């Protein structure tokens, strides 16, 4: 509403807290927030605005160093004002990025009691409950968010909940609504377009998936999940060279394990073993870096290693540790797949049963369940 303009007009930038102008590019927003912090050092609102801009930048780049920068700012803000709601919201966003789901859930359950009218809190609470597998509670939290603020953020979450609990058509309907609202930040719309593309891809509708991935790139160029989505569509169509090009573009932006795994398989399909081994080497290097950072939790890497049937002991360690942080169907699926590759059939079947409890129409679940079902 116009009030945001008025407020900014009436407040010095350092005091224009919580009026994060989503319309301007994130780098420009960061620069303006940095100026505000310099003009009013220690002002909680200015610190929070800059921290929020850093977190948006992290969303756009997957560069977690922005989380560290945001954390320092939020710590300063909380030192000045321990009960500052904005700082607490940001603090929990940061904790979410560190996968401290149970802690965040507890924090948010307390926060929604003091600020029940804040849609963001309910959204984050639902997110944490999805991660820890408490789907009923997540539905309630998302319902509160929807009641307070129908729009891109809440429709997107409804879509995700519906997909995970087995309702593909309902998920696509809600995600289309999220796309329709569009929002002000290109990356946010691109996120929803990729999500919509993923829903179509997982239900075999490749043209629709491709169109949405392409639309995401039109909205937010260099969006790595969109390149990866295109790569999946091309791989499904056996357009291997195109798929390699797309995944390579995604990897050049952020070298996620999934991308390395996909590229390795595609190179093998082309008979390019040297390139395939380079991708394996990249994965191993990534894992060594993670170990050096005492990070032994990664269900995505665990699945890729299990797919490649390499380092299966390490894969099991990564998946089992992940279960300490979150107990959702995706973690159980990863654990089931790794256990299966380790030849532990009975445990794999138990884990797979937990992965399937919500009837999630995830293609990998179906593939893994079929293989594990034959395991003796």
């Amino acid at each position, binding site marked *: *509403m*116009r*009030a*945001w303009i*008025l*407020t900014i*007009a*009436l*407040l*010095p930038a*350092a*005091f224009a807290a*919580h009026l994060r102008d989503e*319309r301007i590019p994130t780098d420009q927003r960061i620069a303006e927030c940095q100026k*505000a912090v310099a003009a009013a050092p220690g002002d909680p609102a200015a610190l929070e605005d800059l921290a929020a801009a850093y977190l948006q930048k992290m969303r756009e780049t*997957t560069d*977690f*160093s922005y*989380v*560290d920068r945001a954390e320092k700012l939020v710590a300063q803000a909380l030192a000045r004002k321990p009960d500052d*709601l*904005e700082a607490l919201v940001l603090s929990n*966003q940061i904790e979410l990025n560190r996968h401290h*789901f149970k802690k965040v859930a507890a924090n948010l359950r307390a926060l929604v009691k*003091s*600020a*029940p*009218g*804040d849609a963001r809190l309910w*959204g984050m609470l639902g*997110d944490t409950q999805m991660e820890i597998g408490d789907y009923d509670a997540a539905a309630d939290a*998302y*319902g509160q968010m*929807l*009641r*307070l*603020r*129908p*729009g*891109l*953020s809440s429709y997107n*979450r409804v879509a995700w909940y519906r997909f995970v*609990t087995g*309702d593909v058509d309902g998920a696509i309907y*809600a995600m289309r609504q999220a796309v329709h*609202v569009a*929002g*002000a930040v290109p990356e*946010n719309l691109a996120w929803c377009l990729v999500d919509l593309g993923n829903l179509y891809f997982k239900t075999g509708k490749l043209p629709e998936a491709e169109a949405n991935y392409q639309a995401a790139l039109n909205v937010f160029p260099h969006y790595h999940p969109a390149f990866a989505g295109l790569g999946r569509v091309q791989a499904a169509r056996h357009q291997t060279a195109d798929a390699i090009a797309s995944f390579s573009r995604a*990897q050049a932006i952020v*070298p*996620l*394990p999934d991308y390395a795994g996909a590229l390795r398989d595609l190179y093998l399909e082309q008979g390019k073993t040297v390139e395939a081994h380079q991708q394996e*080497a*990249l994965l191993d290097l990534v894992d060594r*870096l993670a170990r050096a950072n005492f*990070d032994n*939790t*990664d269900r995505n890497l665990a699945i890729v290693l299990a797919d490649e049937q390499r380092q299966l002991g390490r894969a099991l360690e990564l998946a089992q540790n*992940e279960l300490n942080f979150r107990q959702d169907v995706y973690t159980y699926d990863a654990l089931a797949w790794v256990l299966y590759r380790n030849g532990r059939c009975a445990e794999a079947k138990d884990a797979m049963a937990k992965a399937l409890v919500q009837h999630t129409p995830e293609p990998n679940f179906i593939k893994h369940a079929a293989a594990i079902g034959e395991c003796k």
Partner: protein
Amino acid sequence: MKKLTPYVAAILSAFLAAPTPMLAASHREAPLTALDHPADITDFFSFVSYDDPTKVTFILCVDPLLEPANGPNYFPFDPDVLYTIKIDNNYDAVEDLTFQFQFNTNIKAPGVFTGFVGAGGGIGGVIPPAITSLSGPGAAGLSLSQTYTVNMVTGSGANATSTNLNGKQTLYAVPSNTGPRTMPNYPALAAQGIYNLGNGISVFAGTVDDPFYIDLGAAFDSLNFRSGAYQTGLIPMLSQQQDAANSNSSADTLSGYNVNCIAIQVPIGMVTQPGKPVIGSWGATYRAAMTVRSGAPNQNSGDWVQVQRMANPLINELIIGTGDKDNWSRAVPSSDAQFAAYALNPLLATVFNLVFGIAVPPAPRTDLLPLVQYAKVFGGPTIPAGPVADLLRLNTSVAPTAAGSRSRLGLLGGDGAGFPNGRRVSDDVTDIAMRVVAGALVGAPYNTYRLGDGVNTNDVPYQETFPYVAFANSGRNRRHIDPGESGCGPVTSVFNGSPIVGPCPMN
């Protein structure tokens, strides 16, 4: 390592320097605070019509900062949003009358790359003739067009009854102004979007020039307003001459931008009750209800969820606390007592005091209550105060002020037909709000501060007849007036006429 491609090596070396594990399995972090532009209310106006004092005009504007050149589809209204204007006429802050607007988008030629195309009498059977009409002959180039329905709902809740006001007419929303080749006579085209619905009701919906004006760039720069702060250091205080001028001494940041507005003009007798000339009104936008769990209705359930509301132009972000903003947006005005504490001790007043060294009245700020209650300022000593509620209150018995005598400062400027007695498109709510928060309603010394941003009027003239806002800026010829350019001084040109030539200061 030596086998890795250079870019991967570079990426990894960057990761080595970072303290946080970077490639851990991510969790799903959907956007949390995305704005809803089509439902985003920018301004709400309510005033006795300048050219017909027997009627009142309401204008609801949504979807801010529309760049006129930003095709190909420009900025249609959202068919999934229900736009409403609500009126309370018995002082209880509950709507007694609601005007509802819903849009429908029609695309005639999905294969055409742009929503609007045309030139001359048509070219080669491919390019249609220039667009001269909203429908029928002359509208062949409107590949994208929007129609809409207007319903009048009397009463509220279970007792509400709805009447369609369209009659047999098809109402077309006015498209954005692409430029002179495609739309050679845009004012005439836009004027076709003014419909007489009978019973004295007129309606208009479409893209128009944004009627709001402000030096936003200076505001972002820590309130570094050019016309006063530069000379005096910190306080954005206008000189006496600047304050009195009906012209701009700073650039209007919103110059050249468009916005989508819905305007409706109705006889005063239709919206008031006998002996009760004061009304309270507000705009609200809604989206269809949706349930989270599967199996529940996804669409067409008939239920709507309020996305946003607006009456006075500064209540939510300026007054309402962070944890209550969403709650406030979805609440009805009659429940606003829950937010009263925010109004009685506004943060901004504290800011003025701390940063600018301006003395402000102490809390509780009961002087601000007339903005959120019916009071004698609006209707005389016998009018009941009613509940605390954010309504744009308007005494319809106050005659409109003639164009030459209007004060941009409304009531503060001695003009009883201006804000906060309703709000006209020309009222300078930025300066008014600053002064009211600084204590202008209390009296001396607080009413001596000439706080202002130096933008005293819109970059293009408003219209003196319905729909009162200026029609949309041309995409081809749009111009945003920046500091250091010409475009300040008296706003006397018509929007497609001579440019404003006065310099806009950098400082």
